[in-house]
Every structure is written in C-alpha cells, then in structure tokens.
C-alpha cells in the first residue's frame, strides 16, 4: 500500500468517525427531546385501526358536521363562492382526496401509528397519510399541501394536532357544501380515549371565509381484530360517472 493510499484510507476513516459522532449526537438529542416530553405529559395510546363507518356514526345523520347548531358563520366571500359553486367541478370527481376538516368524518376506517418523533394517521379513504410532527420542527414554504403541515403535542391524556399550510381548496370546508378554504385555514384536533372509543374534537378557523371558529366532535370504535386498511385506489372514471346524472347549474 502506497503513502497516497494510506492517507486516503485515513481521511475516509476520519470522515466516517465524524459522521458517526454527529449521528450519535443527533440521536441523543432526539431521545432527550422525546424523553423530556414523556416526562411532562402522559402519551395517550391511540395506536390501532379505528372504525369510522356507518355503524359507528350514522351517515348523513343528525350528528354529522355540520348541523344547524354548529354550522360555521360564513363571510360574504364564502357566501359568494357558495352561490356560484357548481357541484360538477368538485375535485373529488377526479379523485382529489378529501382533507381536513372533512376527511376525519368520512365514513371509513383509519389507523394511528405512534413513533417517538411523529404520529402517522392513515386514512383508508383516498389512501391518505398525514404526518404529525412531535419533534418541534416548523413548516417551511415547501410544506403547503392539500393535507397541510401538522405538528402535535401530548396534553394530559390527549393528543393535540395543529395543522396549517393548506393550499386553497375549492371544497376545502367539506366535500358537499360548496364552501372553499384558504391558505389561512387552520385545524386543531384533540384526540383522546374514552373507554374503548377514540374521540376527537376538531376546531376550524379560516379568516378568509369564516367569521368565527367552527367545531364538531366525533368518534371511532376499534376495528375488528386483525383488520388492515385496504387500498382505496380511487378510479377517476367511476368517481365522475354520476356527474352526468345532475342537472348542471351552468351550460
């Protein structure tokens, strides 16, 4: 082995050792951070697959969001959008996924996965995955998306999820009232266990369209044992098929 080879090998060893040291320090920091939160708040056990189907909460029933009692107070901008909205242009007919605050109430199953630095919420509807960051990170301009950017914390026996950085969504309020939501939409979810039930209170704010926050509470029950979420694989042809059955608002 030449001197050049020996010097090259030494440099590689030093690089490897430095990288390992940096990784160890980062890991130690992450463990310390999670450990500190664990000490301050009890981590609510939300892990599992949850049934949000019609047996748990009646489809189109009296307790669904939004009822006359909790329907948000819309401003003139929202009313104007609602006035001109035509159901045929709803993005769901092209398989664009449902988002907060509607996806939580879609009558399908979902799954909670809890990691030390994040909570993953998987929805059977539209194959959606939301990541709730628990490590204190903050969103960047690259984090605007249809599901937004979520951060979370444990508070007492509950998980609090705060989501911002939504993109404008022409049916972002829910998927059947023709009310849009803006980039200023924020959604706060509080999840907790009540016996075998998983409960959630959701509060929605959007100063571009709502005069005041709106809120609803719903629940899930444990899915049958060993149930795994099935692929949704939305078919755009079938999603749009029934649109021709409507009498269009505009011709």
């Amino acid at each position: 082995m030449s001197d050049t080879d020996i010097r090259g090998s030494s440099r590689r060893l030093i690089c490897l050792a430095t990288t390992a040291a940096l990784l160890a320090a980062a890991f130690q920091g992450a463990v310390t951070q999670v450990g500190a939160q664990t000490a301050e708040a009890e981590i609510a056990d939300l892990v599992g697959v949850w049934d949000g189907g019609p047996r748990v909460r009646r489809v189109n029933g009296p307790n669904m969001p939004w009822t006359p009692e909790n329907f948000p107070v819309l401003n003139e901008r929202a009313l104007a959008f609602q006035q001109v909205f035509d159901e045929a242009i709803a993005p769901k007919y092209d398989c664009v996924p449902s988002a907060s605050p509607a996806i939580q109430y879609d009558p399908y199953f979902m799954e909670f996965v809890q990691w030390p630095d994040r909570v993953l919420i998987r929805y059977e509807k539209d194959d959606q995955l939301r990541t709730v960051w628990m490590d204190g990170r903050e969103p960047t301009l690259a984090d605007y998306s249809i599901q937004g950017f979520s951060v979370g914390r444990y508070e007492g026996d509950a998980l609090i999820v705060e989501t911002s950085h939504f993109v404008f969504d022409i049916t972002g309020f829910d998927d059947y009232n023709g009310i849009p939501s803006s980039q200023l939409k924020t959604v706060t979810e509080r999840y907790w266990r009540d016996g075998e039930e998983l409960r959630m209170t959701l509060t929605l704010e959007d100063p571009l369209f709502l005069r005041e926050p709106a809120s609803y509470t719903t629940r899930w029950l444990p899915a049958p044992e060993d149930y795994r979420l099935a692929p949704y694989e939305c078919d755009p042809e079938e999603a749009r098929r029934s649109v021709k059955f409507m009498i269009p608002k505009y011709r």
Partner: protein
Amino acid sequence: MKRLLWISSLVAVVVVGFVFTSLPAVAHHSSAPFYDPTKSVEAIGVVERFVFRNPHSFLFIDGENADGEAVEWEVELGAAVSMRRAGWTPETIRAGDSIRAVGQPSRAPGTYGICCSRITRPDGSSIRR
C-alpha cells in the same frame, strides 16, 4: 288467495329489506344532486357488468325504460372497500345474472341512473350466492 299474495309480498319485502340493509351506505356526501329521493324507479334486466371500485361501485343492467325501449341502467352502489367489509366481492354479481333494482332515479333527462337501490333477483330472492 289475496291473503297468500299479501304474505308473499310481506316475505319479499323482508327479504329485499335484508339485502338492502346489508348494503353499505354510499359516501357521506348527499346523493340529492344526482338522484331524486322523492321518486322511485325499477330496473329489471340482465347484468352487463359489475364494476367493483372506489369511490363507488356500479352495476350495469341491460333492461328497458318506461316506454319499453332498450336502455342500459347504471346502478350506483357503495365504495368497494366498504362493500368488501360487508361480504361483497367482485363476483357477488356476475355478467349474465338476472337482476332487479329499485331505487331513486337520476335527475338529468335521458339518463338511467339509480341510487340507493334494493337489489334482488327478479323474483325478489336474495342475490347472495
């Protein structure tokens, strides 16, 4: 005889009702923009194809309209993921099966859509194999 007919009708309603209640609900958004819940329509014919998909499955029936003209009925059903949990598979209904669907008619003139339907064999018996 009338009593026998009444009993037969009652049994048919119970059977149909069972089949109907075993169907998963359609997605939570309202079907009202597409279908008229104040009306009822019946489609009897032969299954052309059964599309078991998300967000909604569809059943295509070669049958007749009220004027006796040959039409293709498009019967909207639930999401495949929900129907599968209720025991449905893509083979629950097969091309060539004789079938009857009673439900809400589609709103747009000249279309033959049906929603929220009760699906049975033409004699009212269960479609379950």
